[in-house]
């Protein structure tokens, strides 16, 4: 019994320590951000790695998410005889929720894992220690550009996702299901406001910071073995997904 309590207490302390490390590391990343922007070359390379290379998966997913929204939304709205609102429903759903969230989940799977395994492998092959030997701060030289690149890429990816998704919904709703195109666009314009778009942008910025920080934290602090790198990659996806969904609820509750 006492052993159980002791184990539980140890587990709780370990979790709290981990949370504290996360918070401190994220704080350091944010504090270093202005300095990292002074070396745009490194950041641009990482925007390419995390953003431009994720474009294909984001655009394809956006298209299909939009198309399925068009299909489901049409079926649902038709029951109330208001299928003209399809544009509104699809645009609001994509801009406020699906765009930022699905983009963040895909980002964690596509770019987050790449960041974590790259940094983990650097750690395992002592490249990070070698930098420290040469009095080069690995956080500044290696971690920061990756973090900032991810933060820059996420809102842009989410905007692309939402735009393609709206076209996907239009493709299904207007071309296949026969919703009037004028109604589709004009009802959307009447109902969606700048605040809704801003809500999506704010969400995707927050998700960008969270996903990038988790990926570089897990990679940077991975156990320097083959197994450790694998575990860091897995943890990146798991932790990012849970944190994104949790943050999404809190942000929605605050901004609604």
């Amino acid at each position, binding site marked *: 019994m006492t052993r159980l309590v002791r184990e539980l207490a140890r587990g709780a302390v370990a979790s709290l320590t981990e949370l504290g490390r996360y918070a401190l590391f994220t704080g350091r990343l944010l504090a270093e951000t202005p300095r990292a922007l002074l070396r745009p070359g490194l950041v*641009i390379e990482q925007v390419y790695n995390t953003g431009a290379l994720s474009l294909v998966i984001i655009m394809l997913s956006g298209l299909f998410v939009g198309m399925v929204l068009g299909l489901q939304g049409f079926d649902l709205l038709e029951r109330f005889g208001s299928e003209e609102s399809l544009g509104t429903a699809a645009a609001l759903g994509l801009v406020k929720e699906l765009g930022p969230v699905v983009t963040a989940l895909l980002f964690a799977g596509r770019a987050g894992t790449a960041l974590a395994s790259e940094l983990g492998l650097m750690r395992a092959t002592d490249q990070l220690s070698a930098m420290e030997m040469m009095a080069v701060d690995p956080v500044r030289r290696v971690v920061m550009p990756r973090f900032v690149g991810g933060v820059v890429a996420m809102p842009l990816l989410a*905007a692309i996702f939402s735009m393609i998704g*709206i076209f996907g919904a239009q493709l299904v709703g207007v071309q296949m299901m026969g919703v009037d195109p004028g109604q589709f666009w004009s009802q959307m314009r009447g109902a969606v406001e700048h605040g809704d778009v801003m809500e999506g*942008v704010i969400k995707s910025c927050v998700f960008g910071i969270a996903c990038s920080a988790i990926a570089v934290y897990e990679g940077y602090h991975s156990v320097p073995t083959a197994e450790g790198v694998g575990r860091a990659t897995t943890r990146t996806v798991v932790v990012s997904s849970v944190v994104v969904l949790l943050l999404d609820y809190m942000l929605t509750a605050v901004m609604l």
Partner: protein
Amino acid sequence: MRATRAVELGTGMFVLLGFAALFFLVTQITNREIGLGDSGYRLTAGFDQIGGLKPGAPVSMSGVTVGRVESISYDFTDYRAVVVMRIDGSYDRIPEDSDASIFTAGLLGGQYVGIAPGGSETFLKDGDRIEFTQSAIVLENLISKFLFSKAGEQGTAAGTEGTN
């Protein structure tokens, strides 16, 4: 860094596409013209009941949107809701004896202000007040009125039966 040119080109295209998408979202799927700010003129109207009218709702004449509701407040001097509307500058010939009513667009649609023109030769200008207004219809009031009138009928019917 290898293949710097290709990386920079790819990044440039990605960033351009991203901002194009943002621009699309802001301009194409929303209705707020950027910089509408100070164009047009303001009219106010007092209503006994505004129902679910919200700032940003359209103001229309014969179904043509001529402006939007700017703000809604409550006036404690005559205990009514005051609706401030911003009318587009090109619609500057609204007669001063026009009346404003609050309608609902469709069964589930939002509410809007409809202006029906009067016959006066003088026109409303910035800051003027529309005197003739008709409140929003609240469904609950209609239903309760209907029910009470029904109940009243039945009550009198029962009463007459009782005397017979």
